[in-house]
């Protein structure tokens, strides 16, 4: 729950500037970007996602390092990814 997972913004929902689609290691899910502000985020940006919300904008190097670290966590990360894959927010 406390794990921040890096995701790349691939789409911002039309008519909902607080909703975006992120790609997290191949899994595409909707997240809320309302905490960052619509003018702060664009397609191709990387964000750190906590429980369905983008909490901070990060650069690609940080995203890669974080993903690598998460991979090393084993079960905790697998569980979090599984939970994210089952998430269906709107």
């Amino acid at each position, binding site marked *: *729950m406390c794990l921040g997972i890096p995701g790349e913004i691939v789409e911002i929902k039309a008519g909902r500037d607080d909703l975006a689609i992120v790609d997290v290691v191949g899994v595409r899910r909707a997240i809320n970007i309302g905490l960052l502000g619509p003018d702060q985020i664009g397609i191709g940006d990387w964000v*750190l996602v906590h*429980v369905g919300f983008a909490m901070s904008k990060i*650069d690609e190097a940080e995203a890669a*390092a974080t993903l690598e670290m998460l991979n090393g966590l084993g*079960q905790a990360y697998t569980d*979090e990814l599984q*939970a994210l894959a089952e*998430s269906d*927010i709107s």
Partner: protein
Amino acid sequence: MRFVDEYRDADKAQALATQIAALCEPGRQYKFMEVCGGHTHTIYKHGIEDYLPESVSLVHGPGCPVCVIPMGRVDDAIAIANEPGVIMTAFGDMMRVPGGNGSFLDAKAAGADIRMVYSPLDALKIARTNPDRRVVFMAIGFETTSPSTAMTVLRAAAEGIDNFSVFCNHVTILPAIKAILDSPDLRLDGFLGPGHVSTVIGCRPYEFIARDYGKPLVCAGFEPLDLLQSVYLLLQQLAEGRCEVENQYTRVVPWDGNLRALEAIGQVMELRPYFEWRGLGFISHSALRMREEYAAYDAERLFDVPGVRVADPKACQCGEVLKGVLKPWECKVFGTACTPETPIGTCMVSSEGACAAYYNFGRFTRQRLVEATRV
């Protein structure tokens, strides 16, 4: 993965280790608390203590959100889950946390409708699609998760969803740090500040630690080199007679935090006069509750919550571990009666709990150290 090497480079780590050792005053012992459970995890996983001189020790702090939930609150949540028509929703980490009468998993097995969700927004969706049920979200966590709960409540209000509520157990990190500083049990020389909480609250709120308590704090990232560099920065401050809040994790943590997130929390929630922390007891103004304006979304007002207080099991020493007074392996039941499969204490449940992190990784580091000293 060329990016990663930047934070993992063994040569860089060794170079930092040498610089760290050079900053240590001979004969002086240094104790730094890493507040965040994520840091504890990195420390054990990568054997960070192997890089530190013997005079520098890292002490684990209370920053594991699952670990600090008192047993009584779990029982209260289960009582709500057992009310007619209720769907209780919770993060996966919460499912195995033992209450006085078992965990969420036990209650689910006994017939309560308790569902795991990734996000409070998933809980809201369950409410939206089950208009005839009452959906409650078991909200836990520090400032990393409280903005998400607040935003979800605002969304529910905007959509007019009236069968969704929050059982609010959000805690705030600063009073816990203050309680540890005020406790006579432990003498600390400085803090490694939590990385993700600081993305929300920023670095400014820690200034009282430097100003009033004379302890430096460095907001640290989660990579092994981040932690070593942060220890270096703490020692450098001490060597130069400075005492400040510094930000090592500038790649993620803005000095002023996330104002939108803070506004959302402030709009929906307010400080409780006091709240019980597992192992730490009652701490004033250390947790959040729903504001009167959002009473319609407050499970504590909507349901008859028993408000039971359950003492921690006698054998469990999570309190001492959370305060940094005991190392996980010093607890009487560590690794014997209490394991990640059958946890007695919360520190063994969450992957960020010091006991689980040590059980999974640290044992090997310690074993290496013990063997090394034998030679």
